[in-house]
């Protein structure tokens, strides 16, 4: 399969302050993508910036995919100036995807801020293959950082909102809600967001004996596993410590394989 595509931008809208959704036209990408995978976008034709930018696939349509992104530096700033009708070079889909094992009846998603990006596609897939709507905890700094809420409700998901300043939903952190949730039985948790949040979600899941998959981020150069720049310390093969490539072995990891004590704050 060809992984380099010149994609037409068919939609590009602000969805919140500093946040945008972009739809990229490509039957090829759409046809080969699974929830959790990511793309490497070429931001400009020149050497500023030099490297591509990794972005999760938000939704998969029949003739394209969408991304949801936050402007946080020079690259994403330039990205936000591109217009519908322009083309952008996209590499992907890359990386692994969220496993959706059968033996679990309850699917719980915990998203912090822009970490919500890979989840609309995952919800659609779980609905399709398991026929249940996952429950969702949507956390953010304030109400402007709660994205995709409407989409999740439309898909039938029970959605809990929580903000650090209490401007929407409960006041507090995602983990405060998680601790209060009354869930029993085999549960699987999917999470993405700030690293401290993922770590705390992981700890709670260990206590409850829940399986937890996290989508991790790392600085990336190649996105294809050749540069070894994006690694995290992990124990993937039995008894064998390794530096796992977020772009190849990940970005989705069973949080139990990550050697959290070896990752700094």
């Amino acid at each position, binding site marked *: 399969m060809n992984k380099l595509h010149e994609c037409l931008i068919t939609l590009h809208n602000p969805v919140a302050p500093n946040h945008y959704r972009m739809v990229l036209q490509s039957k090829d990408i759409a046809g080969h993508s699974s929830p959790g995978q990511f793309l490497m976008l070429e931001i400009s034709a020149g*050497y500023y*910036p030099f490297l591509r930018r990794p972005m999760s696939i938000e939704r998969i349509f029949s003739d394209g995919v969408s991304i949801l992104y936050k402007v946080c530096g020079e690259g994403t700033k330039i990205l936000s100036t591109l217009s519908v009708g322009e083309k952008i070079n996209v590499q992907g889909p890359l990386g692994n995807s969220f496993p959706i094992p059968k033996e679990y009846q309850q699917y719980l998603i915990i998203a912090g801020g822009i970490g919500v990006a890979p989840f609309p596609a995952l919800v659609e897939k779980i609905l399709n293959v398991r026929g249940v709507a996952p429950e969702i905890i949507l956390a953010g700094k304030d109400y402007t950082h709660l994205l995709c809420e409407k989409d999740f409700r439309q898909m039938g998901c029970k959605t809990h909102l929580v903000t650090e300043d209490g401007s929407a939903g409960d006041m507090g952190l995602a983990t405060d809600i998680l601790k209060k949730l009354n869930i029993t039985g085999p549960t699987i948790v999917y999470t993405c967001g700030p690293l401290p949040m993922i770590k705390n979600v992981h700890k709670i899941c260990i206590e409850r004996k829940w399986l937890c998959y996290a989508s991790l981020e790392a600085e990336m150069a190649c996105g*294809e596993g050749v540069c070894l*720049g994006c690694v995290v310390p992990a124990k993937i093969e039995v008894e064998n410590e390794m530096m796992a490539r977020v772009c190849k072995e990940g970005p989705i990891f069973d949080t139990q394989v990550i050697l959290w004590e070896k990752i700094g704050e």
Partner: protein
Amino acid sequence: MNVNLQVSIGNLTLKNPVTVASGTFGYGEEYSEYFDISELGAVTVKSLTLQPRLGNIPPRIVETPAGMLNAIGLQNVGIENYLKYKLPFLRKQNCTIIANIYGTSIEEYVKLAEYLEKEGGADAIEMNLSCPNVHDARNKFKCPLIAQSPEWVEKYTSAVRSSVKLPLIVKLSPNITDITEPALSAERGGADGISIINTLLGMSINTHTRRPKLKNVVGGLSGPAIRPVALKMVWDVSRTVKIPVIGMGGICTTSDALEFIIAGARVVAVGSYLFRDPLAPIRIIQGLRDYCISNHLDDINNLVGSITVD
């Protein structure tokens, strides 16, 4: 018009003068999904060490203007796993293989080279005497590289030279006042070729945390930012030694590759730019052929070192 793109390093013939830089192509598997990697003049693999190495603690890369810093720290599968799990794939693809090796002593380099020769693990050996990322900069602000000592370069080269028959390439560091000195030493030591340049030492600081962006503090700079520096070193070295020079440092396009060849490089390698465009080496091979045709050159070797300085 028939154009000869074949070039030689020692007794090894490459079908064209384009290879990839060690550490930017893994062991070939990943980018073989993008193009037929046997079309390359050679595949140069990630540095191999006697034992597998985990490499440095992340973050290991930072983007910089027109390039990047890396402090990978030679993470690699080790020579045995390479021979067992990586080599069969490269052989099956029919690639010409340049195996890059890294040791912490003369004995280690000799062992690695002998092992590779015995097991048919390479068509040429590239000795990495210039990796900037295997020292902890917090403890040692001076990071000595073998490539910084002409005397050691000769010792290391001649030791490996006398133990294997495979074509031998020595990879040198730009972190030095006069790169022609270690280049001459490598030639005297019996090298068949010289690879230049490895990365330039650099650093980058997060102004909010006032901490280095790389966990290793310092790293190696690569990409278009270093191209003019690399080009000058290729020009200097190729005028000084008689053995072929493999030029690298920020090569992205056919025009970049031509600059290196005209300056004196017999072979060119694409490195960091692969991360932007995995197809760059293939575009460059075609581009070199097109250039030769439109300039009525029937042999690319006639272009090597053809620079005119008025």
